[in-house]
């Protein structure tokens, strides 16, 4: 049985289309979402404010860096950082972290729910009220998979379903998530076909699908070439 190349290409293209067509459509649709929606918006840049607060270096107070080093002899890092516009001491030891008031020297960490809520509101650029505050200590949701726990999660009642994550041990806004970020993450998962971790583009399923898709596209282009040359010849015969 000798089939013409064009016939073989058409049969291959048709059957591969059945196998890979839906995934190609998913690649195109998810890719479109990711290129159309501005990545800075996805990162939540327009949702935050007061992110460039300066620290005030204390002249005098109950504590100095030297006294903190005495108080925490195993400290590997001592610092100053702003929380809601006020400066605090931070201390990091091998296994613990602390936040201390510069004026009183009192240990403020771990921050309570009320403070976490205030910090979240301080950094939130929108107007919507807080609807939910939870302390996440274990089995974090996928959107903060790589972050250090515990974290306070503060949900806002805005149209983006914004969530702020506040670190109770240094008062920082650890990260922010919203509906379009979550959709983006889901799209990325579909795009790279890593349905568990959503991060590994070096997986066998994806590579197999890509090779199939590539064969599909090559036969498609080949057929496109045939269809062009076919039209031209046909026009000639009609003209004759």
């Amino acid at each position, binding site marked *: 049985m000798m*089939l013409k190349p064009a016939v073989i290409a*058409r049969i291959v293209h048709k059957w591969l289309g059945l196998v890979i067509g839906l995934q190609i459509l998913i690649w195109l649709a998810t890719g479109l979402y990711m290129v159309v929606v501005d990545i800075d918006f996805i990162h939540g840049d327009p949702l935050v404010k007061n992110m460039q607060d300066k620290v005030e270096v*204390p002249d005098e107070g109950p504590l100095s860096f030297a006294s903190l080093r005495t108080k925490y002899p195993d400290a590997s890092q001592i610092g100053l950082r702003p929380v809601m516009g006020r400066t605090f001491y931070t201390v990091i030891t091998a296994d613990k972290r602390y936040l201390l008031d510069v004026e009183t020297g009192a240990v403020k960490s771990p921050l309570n729910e009320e403070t976490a809520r205030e910090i979240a509101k301080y950094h939130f650029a929108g107007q919507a009220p807080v609807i939910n505050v939870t302390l996440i200590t274990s089995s974090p949701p996928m959107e903060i998979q790589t972050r250090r726990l515990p974290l306070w999660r503060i949900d806002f009642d805005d149209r983006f379903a914004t969530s702020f994550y506040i670190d109770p041990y240094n008062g920082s806004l650890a990260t922010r998530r919203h509906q379009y970020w979550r959709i983006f993450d889901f799209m990325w998962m579909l795009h790279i076909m890593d349905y568990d971790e959503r991060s590994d583009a*070096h997986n066998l399923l994806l590579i197999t699908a890509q090779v199939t*898709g590539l064969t599909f596209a090559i036969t498609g282009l080949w057929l496109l070439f045939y269809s062009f*040359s076919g039209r031209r010849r046909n026009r000639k015969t009609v003209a004759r």
Partner: protein
Amino acid sequence: MMRLFKKLHKWIGLLMGLQVLLWLLSGLMISLLDPEKVSGKQWASTSVAESQTLGPVVLLEPAELPAGLLKDALGIDLTNRHGEPVYLVKRTGGETLVDATDGSIVVIDRARAEQLALNDFNGDGKIASIESGMAPERETRDSQGAYWRVEFSDRSNTSVYISASTGEILERRNSFWRVRDFFWMLHIMDYSGRENFNNPLIITVALIAVWLGISGFILLFGSFSRADFFFLNLLEKNTDVVITLIDPGVSNHQQVRLRKGSNLFLSLATHNVSLDSVCGGGGECGKCRVQFETTYLTEPNTIELGLIPKRLRERGYRLACQQIAEKDMTLHVPEGTLTPGR
């Protein structure tokens, strides 16, 4: 005017096809590359420096640091870097290291950068060159400020970028990363910066591609007939039809048994009856004309209306690729289609 549109359509279609091919090819290349190699972690020293305690030595208080640095600091940390106690001062423009014993600004000089790079890199290569530069550039586009680029003579041409202000490893680049970056450029269609995938070009092309993808998906459903799935109803009997073929140049008729409901062109092709065709049965070239006995004739579809002149249609000509082997019938095929003496 119509010729122009046709030409445009053809070339846009071809360009789109090529871009889809490039997306698939670049996507494949990106996934094939091992992320451990691309990130350079494969050849990076794995020993994580134990976080040293600050110890009891006498150090400066933050208030004793240069006032100019403190004025607009976003954060100040006393910590150990490269084995020495330092203040790390974070400002909008970047980070500065200050010696915590005397308040002098730490400078990462060439010799220091060389040592830091040697500590980090554990591949099999020696330092080939050390140069300074200013980020962001192509390979340092996620960083800012002055850097040292330490190039190694290993097989994957590793370059370790070290911040000239903090001594931090900014990037580890190598041939794997560079290959990936090239395909990434093709994938996101940002040919200058290679990082902005929200660019107008890719948005436009992606919109057209999605539209083509949807129409292709619809065409896909149309291209299958129930006979293509014969393996799903193997138990059903009498699913063949007999087609009698008449070639004016051959005295004997030829009969072929085709699966009922199959595409006439493709089915005949698989039974060694090769009708003339350029497009391979796509309804594009109009070459696979066959003449039906008028009793079997169905209404021509739009493809046949466009590709067969009226006088021939009225005489029973149709395109085999648009016809289904529905029942037993007789077909007149062009002279020379059948082999004489069979």
